């Protein structure tokens, strides 16, 4: 079943001098099995939006529907536990997600909470710590005695271990080393393609959006400014410049070459295809 978002608004500090309309009547739907990128400038409402998907924040007005659960203003969401099992969210700052004294307990917490036996939960922890690129020796460490990138990996492992159908990642590769970031994106793709998980990714990294996602939603001041396929989105860099988005390096290269009189196909979005265009125009 798709996620339906109907006229969702969220206002922080309503009726005070600090009032801030972070989301302004957003409507959209997200189908099962999509790999969607949510982008937009600082403060545009991305983190606010994703926190509604598992009812960490409730709408000021409007509603969301996920399966038969409705998340609505001023109404205690029912079936909260099953919602949190359905939708896993990794926060922008992973620290706020870690709380147990060992990493083992931290990762095992979610599955146990959803009725998995202790032994099985521990096995899941052992599996997922390795899935995120850390070895078993980490399990006995405290999550607070880890580096920034290690904390991010542990937070991701904790959510993966719950095996939710919808996975929401708020800037999951910030703080990961380049290999870690690539491995993580490949993992998300596998979860999407092989296990049909719905993946919602908040990111400022256009390389990841271009290379891994199918659809892009651009938020701007709490509204949806653009909603289209990734292919269409990256076809022209003009739109990206208009939206103050730093184009992926490949588009910068194409623009620089065109400025020098090279003919490069619009559709060429990989190094291989751009190199082929260059090859046609240079002497070998």
């Amino acid at each position: 079943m798709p996620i339906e978002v109907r006229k969702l608004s969220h206002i922080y500090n309503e009726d005070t001098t600090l009032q801030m309309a972070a989301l302004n009547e957003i409507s959209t739907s997200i189908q099962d099995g999509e790999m969607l990128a949510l982008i937009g400038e600082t403060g545009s409402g991305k983190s606010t939006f994703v926190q509604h998907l598992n009812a960490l924040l409730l709408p000021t007005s409007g509603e969301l529907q996920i399966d038969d659960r409705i998340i609505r203003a001023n109404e205690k969401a029912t079936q909260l536990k099953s919602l949190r099992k359905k939708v896993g969210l990794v926060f922008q700052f992973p620290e706020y997600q870690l709380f147990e004294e060992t990493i083992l307990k931290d990762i095992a917490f979610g599955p146990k909470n959803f009725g998995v036996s202790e032994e099985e939960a521990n096995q899941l922890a052992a599996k997922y710590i390795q899935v995120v690129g850390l070895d078993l020796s980490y399990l006995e460490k405290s999550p607070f005695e880890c580096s920034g990138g290690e904390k991010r990996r542990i937070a991701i492992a904790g959510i993966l271990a719950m095996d939710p159908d919808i996975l929401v990642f708020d800037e999951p590769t910030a703080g990961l080393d380049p290999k870690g970031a690539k491995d993580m994106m490949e993992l998300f793709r596998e979860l999407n393609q092989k296990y049909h998980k719905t993946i919602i990714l908040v990111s400022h990294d256009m390389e990841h959006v271009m290379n891994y996602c199918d659809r892009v939603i651009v938020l701007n001041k709490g509204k949806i400014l653009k909603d289209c396929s990734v292919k269409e989105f990256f076809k022209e860099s003009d739109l990206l410049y208009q939206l103050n988005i730093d184009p992926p390096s490949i588009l910068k290269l194409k623009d620089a070459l065109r400025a020098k009189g090279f003919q490069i196909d619009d559709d060429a979005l990989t190094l291989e295809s751009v190199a082929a265009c260059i090859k046609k125009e240079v002497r070998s």
Partner: protein
Amino acid sequence: MAKIEVRDCVFSYDDKIDAVKGISFDVQEGSYTTIIGHNGSGKSTIAKLLIGLLEKKSGSIRIDGMELNEENLYDIRDKIGIVFQNPDNQFIGATVADDIAFGLENHQVDPSKMDEIIQEYAKRVSMSEFLAHEPTRLSGGQKQRVAIAGILAMQPEIIIFDEATSMLDPQGKKEINELIYELHEKNHLTILSITHDIEEAVKSDYVIVLDDGKVIMAGKPEDVLMHQKEMIDLKLDIPFALKAVNELKKQGIQIKDTITIEGLVEEICRLK
């Protein structure tokens, strides 16, 4: 002149495994130096050693020619500003304005000038509208902007950025980079930036590569970042331009190795 001089520095969190295993490097005065390295390689630990937040087991650290020790810890901290990986860890004030003011007070800035300085730096990071807001209740990128403004306002001689722009949108990154470069030129600011962004390393003056608590390579970006195999083995990336060079070579075009897009375009034009 070396603004920061680290020699044979060793540090351990638990007395069992050393997180920093005998590190030596220099950061030249007025340079833009980057530190890159895999997760857990010891980057943040080094940053904390440099400001005396952690105490080394052995070795020496000299800032501006002064040995870092208990006696001159506060003199040295006056010279260095650090922006942490998680900005929440450094907010003290209840509002954005208070938070910037707090750092200024600590640096004995003339109270009559304070308001002006706060306004100026908030404006430079596009946070003027948020001066009355609580710093911990902002978006991720807004928090990073405030943390950076607070440090820049103190006008330190050295700034350490620990992945301080990792959550900024590209426009924000550009704005902040311009501001940093401006201060770098104008005030001869020394910058030590810990980053996972290889393209940032490409643009820096000097790159230090860490692996498992050790410095494994250091030098100019065009020397260090050309070591493709090593970079990949160290869980790092190679610059985009070099990837393009590889692809062109694969398709039979002979072209010189380069790490910048401008350099690459120049080389391609030469072949036309």
